[in-house]
């Protein structure tokens, strides 16, 4: 039971940010975007996921004041060159990321994911902590 309560709580929390763009995001998304989505989950989501308390999301909320989605995963205006620039050069106190962290090939996959139509991106990426909570709660029910 706890699992469902937790999952609902999460969904409600995320909806506040996601709803403005698209309330129908669900499922894993298009198969060809999975590698890019994994790069996003590993490297971007810890700061940029759809959680208003995260530093990257908070910074973009303050910057755009709602005129653009605060969570990168909800943006439809990003171009590959822009994403690549910020990944390799950073901005404000976001550090640049090295090719040993995000390889050139992974950067292309990330670009494909963040520039795909929203309906192909699937459900919002969860944070590691949320994954852990979900797993431990599910485990507790077994």
């Amino acid at each position, binding site marked *: 039971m706890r699992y469902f309560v*937790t999952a609902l*709580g999460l969904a409600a929390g995320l909806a506040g940010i996601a709803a403005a763009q698209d309330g129908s995001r669900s499922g894993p998304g298009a198969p060809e975007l999975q590698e890019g989505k994994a790069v996003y989950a590993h490297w971007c989501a810890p700061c940029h996921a759809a959680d208003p308390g995260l530093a990257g999301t908070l910074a973009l909320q303050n910057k755009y004041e709602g005129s653009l989605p605060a969570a990168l995963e909800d943006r439809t205006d990003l171009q590959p060159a822009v994403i690549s620039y910020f990944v390799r050069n950073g901005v404000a*106190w976001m550090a*640049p990321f*090295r090719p040993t962290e995000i390889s050139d090939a992974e950067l292309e996959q990330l670009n494909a994911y963040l520039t795909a139509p929203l309906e192909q991106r699937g459900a919002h990426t969860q944070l*590691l*902590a949320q994954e*852990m909570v979900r797993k*431990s*709660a599910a485990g507790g029910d077994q």
Partner: protein
Amino acid sequence: MSVLPPDMDAAGFAAFLEELRGAVGADWVWSGDADMFPYRDSFSPVWNTDEERHASAAVAPENVEQVSAVVRIARKHRVPLYPISTGKNFGYGGPSPNVNGSVVLDLKRMNRVLEVNNERNYCLVEPGVSYFDLQRAVDETGNKVMLDCPDPGWGSPIGNSLERGVGYTMPHFRDHFGSHCGMEVVLPDGEIMRTGMGALPGSDTWHEYPYGFGPDPAGLFAQGNFGVVTKMGFRLMPMPEYYRTGLITVPRRRDFIKLVNHVNYLSDSGLIGEVEYGSALRALMGDRDFLALITKTGGPSDAEMDAAASAAGLPSWQVELQFFGPEKATLENWNYAKDRILSDIPGAAAVDGDHFTMPATEEQLNNTTQPWQTSIKRRRSLGVPSLGAWKIVRDDGHVGFFPVLPRTGEAVFEVQRVLGDAMKEFPSLPSYFNALSTPLFWHTHTFQMVFAPSIKHDDPEHNAITHASMKKCVAVAAEHGWGDYRAAPIYQDDVSDTYSFNNHILRRFHEQLKDSIDPDGIIAPGRGGIWPRRFRA
């Protein structure tokens, strides 16, 4: 800003890079401005000045044999290597080396969690493993142990511990170097060494008994430059069954002295985890008169502070306590802490806080239900890696000075006054030291306080103030016996200079070791303030 390694021309550099490509593959060697940009320190207070340190190239081996090969090639060409693991090392120099033209030895590709042992409670990892990665591995083996993480989850357990970084759970796990057990190191001649029981072929106790036999050189590899650490074991705490919090407040300024002694007792007895000291009086800092009082030159008197607290109806100090263990044990320990402190300090009060079964739920991690305004960052307190703490970053970043001071209330008052007065020279900086500044209880038995002025990429005047204030703070603190625990390369010589007992014998001893095993300075010359003969001349 292309640079070359010391004493090397462009042709020699090209030949050196070609040999590196032969060792690790052409895809894993980088040079030139564009590729080297992510190897600059993006939090540098000397950004775009002559003092900024630039690497000439980066090389990324994928295993210990390649590390050894790279070290041998560097030794042949007399090129300094600067090893990094993973993460950003924000505030401590990022990936930038001590010596211009060094080649960054980027160990990110060595990213295997080699073992998580849930019965004997340890793990063995490579340098490129992050706390996020390690937590995933722990999760996959049943989530039976609790990590102890620094603020950013992207950091490396090996890199963080070698910088003597800290976490926020129980005392003996918070000291990340202190909780390591067994390491593998590539020495400056390319030989591969294992410490402790790792030196005994066939032993299965490398991560349980750290010493083996004879002198233990493991300490040389933290904040040092005697080798490249390629594996480390870490002790892990079994996942506690229960977590409990409580708040203690004390009314008068001098009560802090007794409060600290009680908390020391509780911590050294293993009854509590990390604590958060604070003061409810911080709510008054928007009041100009009160702000003037707490930042007064020479410090306010106890009577002045007590009068302000009394007028506001607020306690002078508070401490948030955290308990881990079986549910009944956490309750008994909390009851004991309350009895002990409330019976000794007149007017002290206690408030029961959140308590719950571990592991925490998402809502519990968000820490929104405490009956007081809490300073506990719940994720880090429960060893859950995140990047949540980066909300504290102002401007484009910061540098950090965290002096080690005695674990007494009196010492805290003295630091408030001495460094508060000294930093008045920099009125544009926020007030880091004033009559309400509280100590950090991060390392197992150590108090530190925080000085972390910001940097701005496009404001060299601001950065110059930050840079000058860092040097001044290190110097003034040292005059009073308070030393930094960790520093960016641009400050390592300043900090090393302050550890000067007996005409700097500690540094001279390190230099003798360095001269004997790495005279050409192949491994991070200058790191920790240790320079080999080649660079001392």
